Structures are given as structure tokens and as C-alpha cells.
């Protein structure tokens, strides 16, 4: 049976590398990715000062884009917690302004009341104790109509606002709150929620 060795496997048996090596490399890769990026993120500073009076683009949809103009100095954009066109988090001392640009998918677009109801559910999806009050009318400084109410949860309280864009294709939703923010802190910056501007695309 000498022929058995001639046309068999083309190579001589090679020494096995211990299976501990791929096991260790794979486990290390998972550990590095899961531990490494959050660590690097924590080490990189991520706040940008937002000057007052300058519009900050915060979303677009349909024929319109939205921007926010801060009346006060001292606001910082938390870039690590923000996503362009979708989510923005601004801080000023103990006050946090969280802004979401939402894009309804139904036709016709939802009413402001339906948007408020959706926002109510989204608040509970983020924190189970979060509750929005029944809404009241509010308008931006430029006259866009929206709804506002109070936000209360076990950890914070403040205000919630929603403004549908003029064609209803998207909406700007904001909460102004903060775990350590006092009523006075919130009152001092309350006008920020009225500084949203909708601009028609292509308009100067």
C-alpha cells in the first residue's frame, strides 16, 4: 500500500498552532472594540460653544429646513450625543435642551395633537416615569404654531414643545429640563424654545 502516500495530501502535516491563539485573539478583539471606543470617546473632549444669535441648522424635510437661534450665550453643543439632522443635545449649566427632528411616514402628515401623543410615548420610552401634560398652543417668534406642555419624571421636570414644519413633512421636538435644574434655571432660558425658524428650501 505504498501508493497511499503519493497522491494524498500535498503537504506534510504541519505543526498545529494552539487553538488558544485564535480564541485569545477573538476574545481580545471583542474586548478592545467594546472597551476601547467608549474609552477613547470619554477621553476626547466633545463640547462646542454655540454663540448666541447665530442660527444652528437642526433638521430638514419636505420643502423646509429648521434652525435654532439661541438668545443667550453660554450654550454648549454636546457633539458626542448629537447626530446631524436628527438629534441635538445642548447644555447650559444644569439645563439640558434635547432637540429631535422627527419625520412622519404617513400620508397625510399627522396633526400637532398626534405629534404630541407620539412625543408622549417617546418620552416614556426613554424614561418610564416620564409624563407629558395636556398640551397648550405655543408659537415661535416668527409665528409658527406648535404645542407645549410640562414634562415630569422621577429624575427631572421641565417643558416639552413640538413644532410641525409648515408643510407637515417633519417636526421639531424639544425638551428643556435637567436633573439639577431649578425652576429659575429653566425660566432664565425658557425663550429658547420659541427661537425655532423654518425656512423654505432655496429661499435666501
Amino acid at each position, binding site marked *: 500500500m505504498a*501508493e*497511499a*502516500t503519493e*497522491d*494524498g*495530501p*500535498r*503537504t506534510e502535516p*504541519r*505543526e*498545529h*498552532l494552539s*487553538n488558544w*491563539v*485564535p*480564541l485569545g*485573539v*477573538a476574545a481580545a*478583539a*471583542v474586548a478592545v*472594540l*467594546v472597551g*476601547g*471606543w*467608549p*474609552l*477613547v*470617546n470619554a477621553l*476626547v*473632549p*466633545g463640547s462646542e460653544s454655540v454663540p448666541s444669535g447665530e442660527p444652528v441648522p437642526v433638521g430638514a424635510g419636505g420643502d423646509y429646513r429648521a434652525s435654532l437661534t439661541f438668545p443667550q450665550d453660554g450654550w454648549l*453643543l454636546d*457633539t*458626542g450625543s*448629537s*447626530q*446631524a*439632522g*436628527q438629534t441635538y443635545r445642548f447644555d447650559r449649566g444644569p439645563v439640558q435642551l434635547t432637540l*429631535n427632528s*422627527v*419625520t*412622519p*411616514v*404617513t400620508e397625510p402628515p*399627522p396633526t400637532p395633537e*398626534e*405629534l404630541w*401623543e*407620539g*412625543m*408622549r*410615548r*417617546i418620552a*416614556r*420610552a426613554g*424614561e*418610564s416615569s416620564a409624563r407629558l401634560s395636556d398640551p397648550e398652543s405655543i408659537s415661535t417668534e416668527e409665528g409658527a404654531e406648535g404645542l407645549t406642555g410640562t414634562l415630569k419624571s422621577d429624575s427631572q421636570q421641565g417643558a416639552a414643545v413640538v413644532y410641525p414644519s409648515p408643510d407637515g413633512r417633519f*417636526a421639531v*421636538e424639544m425638551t428643556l429640563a435637567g436633573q439639577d435644574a431649578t425652576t429659575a434655571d429653566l425660566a432664565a432660558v425658557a425663550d429658547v424654545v420659541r427661537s425655532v425658524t423654518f425656512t423654505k428650501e432655496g429661499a435666501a
Partner: protein
Amino acid sequence: MSPESDDPRIPATTDRGAVPSPRPSPQDPPGPRRVPPPRRGGGLRTREQRLPALVSLVLITVLCLAGLLHLVLQLALPARVFFPEALLSVILGAATLVLGFWVLRRIRPVREPDADASLVAVAWGLFVATSAGVIANAGLGSVWAKGLGLDLAGVWGAALTAPLNEELLKLAGIVLVAVAFPSAVRGPVDGFAIGSLVGLGFEVTENFIYSINMVLMAGGTGGLVPVVQTTVLRVGLTGLGSHWALSAVAGTAVGLLAAVAWRPRARRAVGAALLVALSMVLHWFLDAPVFSDVLGILFKVAVIFATTMAVYFTARHAYRRRVRKALAAEAEGLGVRRSAASALATRHGRRRELRRVALPERPAVAARQDQMVEIAEDRAVRYAL
């Protein structure tokens, strides 16, 4: 008949080491004879593999439980608030999982991959790779936002984050499955199949996360519409070129390395590295902000699917050829016609051969087919070295 089948001089060794190939001897009676039953799913090649296999399995189990817990903590609250949406997403995900599991196991040539390894691979994708991906992507995504600015990160962030994190996290799972089940991942076709199953699991959980995100991005309005849209987009439009395909390509690399006990020569090492790089480049291509309209996305999916199929058919062709060669060699020892033995390399061929046998004899013949194919696959692995 293939040229290979003319070569009767096949070594009798197998990877299980203890299953000799039956050969005719002067003492043997003529005609068919019984093949010694191989140990299905068992037979770790060396004693040195057992402890790493056990540790790997324990590690996978622990990480699966941790990943599941993390995902539950992340998603339970939104899923409770948007319960109908979450329920529909789970149902659609389960359907995707069942269909994908069946299809992707079927595409392995010769026979399905080991069932235990397949399930563990899916579990890694479902729980570990996705959970770890959520953490790693959030970290790296924030780093890009801080380093590049929100606008640039908004355009390029996904393409700079997901291909690196997600492909490596899925790849780590394929490697761990290969270590945990060394007799189930012994070559490129095994790696392709196990990789595709890891990718399938990842895709199903990711689809669920995307569905919930879409519901939130729609402002909590629209009911089930965002969930249906997500499924249509991610299963219907991009399904053929998504995670299962990307990880199948990377898994082929793992199979190449596992086949040589993780000690490749330079050419094989380069080939494996290129396949892993290819999976990342394809993922980058899918996520990059180019060709972003529907036709463009279809083009990208077609490129990924075609590339994956090129890898698949290359691996399948080589493997089937080796299995046919091994079966032809076995045929001689068993008194079976070579053509009949070579036909056993495909599921269709085995069914056809079975139909030629009288009904009462079929179970016994089917069992013998299984044994022959298993031994032939053992041999085929050695031919690839």
C-alpha cells in the same frame, strides 16, 4: 466522470484518525460491505483542541447571556411603549431568521453544516455581535462626531464605523465557533456557511433595533408603517447583499485558516486577510454616501451579492471536486460504482441514487450514504491542505 475519479490512490487516513477506509483485500468477499459508522459531530482532532473548544463554548455562552441582557435593558422600555410595533418587528424577524437559517444551511455544498455550530453561530450574531456593536458603534460614532464635526460625521459616520466594528465583532464570533466546533469548521465552505449564519443573526437583531429607531424617528406616529418600511428596505431591497453575505466572505477566511490548524503559509494568510478586508470594503461601499437613491442601492447590493457568490462558487467548486475524488476512492473499497459514489457529493445525487433502491432498503442505504459522505468529507479536508 471527472479526471480525479480515475485516481484510486487515496490515503486511508481521515481527520478522525481512527476510521480506516475500507479497501478490498484477498479475505474480503466481493460486493458491498458495511462502512464503519463515523462519530457524527464528535472526534476533536487532537486532545489539545478539547480544552480551547470548551473554553470557547463557555465564553460564547457567557457573552450571549450578557449580550441578551444588555439588549433587553436597552430595548425593553421602548418595546413596551411601542408594543404592537415591537411585536410585528419580532414576528418579521422570526420569519427572516427561520427562512434565512434554512436557506443558508442549504447552500453549503454536499450537506448542511453541523446543527450545533449553526445554532451557536446564529446566537452570536443575534446577541453578542449586535450588543457589542451597539456599544462600540456608539463610542466610535461619537469620536467621529467630535473629530470630524457633526455634519461630516453625519454623512460619513456610518461608513467609517460599521464596517470596522461590526465586521470584526462578527468575525470574532466565527473564529470562536470554529474553535468551539473544530470538526464543524474545517475549510472555506464551512467558514462561508457559519459566517453567513452569524451575519443572519446579526441582521435579525439589527433589523429590530432599526425598526424601533424608525418608529422613534417618525415621532411615534405612523403605527406599524415604519416597521413595515424597515423590513421592506432591509430584507426586500438590501437583503441579498447584507450581513449574511459580508460575514460569509469573512467566514471563508476563517475556514481557510482553520483548515491548516491556524498556521497558514504566506499565500493562504494573504488570501484570508484579503477576504476579511473585502468584507469590510463591501460593507463600507454599502454604507458610503454614494449611489444613495433606490437604483444606486440596488447596484451596491448587486455588487455585494455577486462578489459573495464568486467567493461561494469558487469554494464550492474546489470542495465538491475533492469530495467527489474522495467518494470515487471509497467506491473502490466498497464495491460501489464510481459514478454512483461520486453522485453522492450532492443532495440531488443522493436522492436520485436512493430512488433506485427498493423502498424497504432505503433507510439502510441512506445511512450508508451518510457514512460515505462523512468519510469523504474527512478526506476532502485533507486534500485541501
